[in-house]
């Protein structure tokens, strides 16, 4: 696995900081958006916090969600303190399992409750890695086979 393009190790801490700061705000914002606002205390003391997380026609939800995703990206694609063969192997293994589980979840969602329209949308976002994986795997396989002749 190519690790030259990974972020430096210190970025991991920055990603963790973003997640710790923005996940509670994201959860509170979701509660507000999905009309569970009775869960938020509206007493004068907490009005300032409530004002931050309310989705008053702004893009709070999108901002919080994007920030958490950036945090996760920084954590996932930052180097470990010592980046060696074992970490490369574990990275590949984790990526393989994540990809497989995600694919199963999508297929289950299509089959169980979302239907074929969801499948058409997900083709662009989720099933694309499967198509790319299959194409790239066979390309590399036949490329090496051709090169060895």
């Amino acid at each position, binding site marked *: 696995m190519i690790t030259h393009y990974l972020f430096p190790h210190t970025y991991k801490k920055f990603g963790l900081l973003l997640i710790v700061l923005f996940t509670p705000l994201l959860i509170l914002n979701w509660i507000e958006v999905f009309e569970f606002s009775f869960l938020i205390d509206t007493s004068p003391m907490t009005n300032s916090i409530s004002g931050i997380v309310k989705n008053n026609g702004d893009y709070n939800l999108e901002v919080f969600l994007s920030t958490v995703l950036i945090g996760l990206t920084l954590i996932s694609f930052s180097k470990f303190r*010592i980046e*060696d063969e074992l970490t490369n192997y574990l990275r590949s293994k984790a990526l393989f399992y994540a990809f497989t589980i995600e694919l199963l979840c999508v297929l289950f969602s299509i089959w169980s409750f979302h239907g074929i329209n969801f499948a058409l949308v997900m083709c662009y976002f989720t099933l694309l890695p499967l198509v790319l994986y299959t194409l790239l795997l066979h390309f590399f396989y036949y490329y090496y086979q051709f090169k060895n002749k």
Partner: protein
Amino acid sequence: MKNTLKVHRAQHAITQEELANAIAVSRQSIHAIESGKFVPSTILALKLAHYFNVSVEALFILEKRD
């Protein structure tokens, strides 16, 4: 694949941490190799062999199931 890394490390009286620092890998890697959970690449196997001044075959032994 079996390996005699732990034996060689004991003979040289060095810790996993010291061996890891000497060949620029993490201590977890040494532990994973010693416990047979991770098979190192040829480069790492050669580095380990050079460090202990033995052949790779003396460190790593193929089993029948391999």
